[in-house]
């Protein structure tokens, strides 16, 4: 009798669920924890038997070393300025396109929309090489124009913005028109504020994607002074592959800004994932 009671209480508390889910959550965090702990260890301690989990002596030597060798402030500035500019342009243009596709009627609208949407299925590798040749021909190699211009529009963001436009009542826009508002005014002062949640979601996602982007920046930017963070980190790892404290410090510095952005915009990222299946 008491056994059955204990079992039921356990079930009610979801104890087994907590244990398993807790273990999975720990597995998710462990690699990051190990990265952080390693980055604070002295070189001798990292490569020693038996291993230590926590550093015996905490040191920031790895960070000082990595920051200067990675030229980290410069790289942060490069990545931040490109990621912010790119995100702003992508989301602004997608919002505008989404508005036009969602709220206006014009000839061939559907065809043009599908024409844009169809590019979503293209793997990057399929247009990468000719795009690179174009950038070289335009003498944009090593220029941030090569990172920004070919990625100005986004079919995905356009699609999501258009979907969101359907939730804005036409009567509202017509009422504003009656009051003499122009189309630009309506877009900037009426539509954009109403789209704030979806815009925040898109901005946080695109910022993270742009910050983490790898293959294209790897191809078009070869000047070390102009590199993006993930490319710089991969070069850093290739160069100092066995100095694990150092490369972990580099990895921490690459991860930190995105985690900060994520913590700030958490709500919107979470909404974005569960609402749209965005990845």
């Amino acid at each position, binding site marked *: 009798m008491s056994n059955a009671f204990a079992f039921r209480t356990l079930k009610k508390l979801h104890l087994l*669920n907590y244990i398993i889910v807790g273990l999975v959550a720990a597995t998710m965090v462990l690699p990051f924890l190990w990265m952080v702990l390693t980055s604070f260890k002295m070189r001798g301690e990292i490569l020693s038997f038996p291993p230590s989990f926590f550093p015996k002596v905490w040191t920031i030597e790895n960070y000082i070393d990595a920051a200067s060798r990675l030229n980290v402030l410069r790289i942060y500035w490069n990545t931040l300025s490109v990621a912010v500019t790119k995100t702003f342009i992508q989301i602004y243009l997608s919002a505008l396109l989404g508005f036009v596709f969602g709220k206006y009627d*014009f000839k061939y609208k559907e065809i043009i929309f599908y024409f844009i949407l169809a590019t979503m299925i293209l793997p990057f590798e399929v*247009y990468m090489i000719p795009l690179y040749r174009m950038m070289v021909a335009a003498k944009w190699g090593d220029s941030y124009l090569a990172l920004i211009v070919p990625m100005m529009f986004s079919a995905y963001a356009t699609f999501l913005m258009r979907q969101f436009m359907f939730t804005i009542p036409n009567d509202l826009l017509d009422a504003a028109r009656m009051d003499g508002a*122009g189309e630009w005014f309506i877009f900037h002062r009426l539509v954009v504020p109403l789209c704030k949640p979806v815009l925040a979601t898109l901005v946080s996602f695109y910022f993270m994607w742009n910050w983490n982007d*790898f293959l294209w920046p790897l191809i078009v930017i070869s000047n070390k002074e102009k590199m993006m963070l993930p*490319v710089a980190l991969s070069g850093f790892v290739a160069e100092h592959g066995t100095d694990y404290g150092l490369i*972990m410090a580099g990895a921490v510095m690459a991860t930190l800004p995105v985690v900060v952005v994520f913590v700030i915009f958490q709500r919107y990222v979470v909404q974005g994932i569960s609402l749209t299946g965005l990845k």
Partner: protein
Amino acid sequence: MTSLILRTKSFFNLFGGINGPKKRMTLFIVVPAIIYYLILRYYPVFQTMILSLTDAKLLKKEYQFVGFENYAFIFKDPPFVKAILNTTMYALATTLFTVVLALILAFLLNPLPYGNNFMRLLFYLPMITSGIAIATIWLWLYQARFGLFNQVLGYYGITPVPWLISKEWALPSLIIMAIWGGVGYDAIIFIAGIRGIPTEYNEAAKIDGATDWQMALYITLPLMSRVIVFIVVTSIIGSFQVFQQVFLMTRGGPLDSTRVISLSIYDYAFSRLKIGVSASMAFVLFIIVGVLTVIQLRMQREDWEL
């Protein structure tokens, strides 16, 4: 004659149907968008098709047509055949394990009254971190002598595993890492799927005396089939394009045991400078991804509400 002029005029009157300010705004954004997509997406894809039939080199302007020679070459080229097999293996194994684990996780996590949000936050971590940072961390975890995994195995007296440095273990190591990286995201989508199911079904089953597992297996799971199919197909498509982790961790080695399609495309274009061959490989990838996408669109037609 007049009717011909009128007809031509109406054909070119792309944005007929609206007037004034609306028309100006439409022209302002739609025309640049069309030009952008034509020049920076459609034309390059077309050019890749053309290049795949030539002997073009990366930094040389002139090239000659060689017919389907590149395709004949790559399908007889052992490393590329290996790359197709590896990528397929990687995509299927990663997707299968990730989806099954994520489903179990979603069912366990969903009913929890406390800590639900906190634990979900932890699951986002791999998703928001750059692939290169993750690869860097795992390079260290997998390190043969001092890496965490082998240290722990050694502690329990188990023979160390030569993770990334052996032909047999390198691909599974990459798959394990990908499962770790994807399971949280998939679980979160599945939880949203579970919550989207009307509660009446389960309440009715409960009255009839169904157990939790029966309800999960026979009611919730079948009702989630759309979400599951969506995740499975998008996950296979995504895995077919894997690049960063392989590029940083193994570079396709040892002995091509982790060579994947994207890496071959990159190597042929930017190390060997043979963009003709590289373009033909890219086109093969395009066909694989295209077929998968068509399957997905077919299965989810109603979901798109276009």
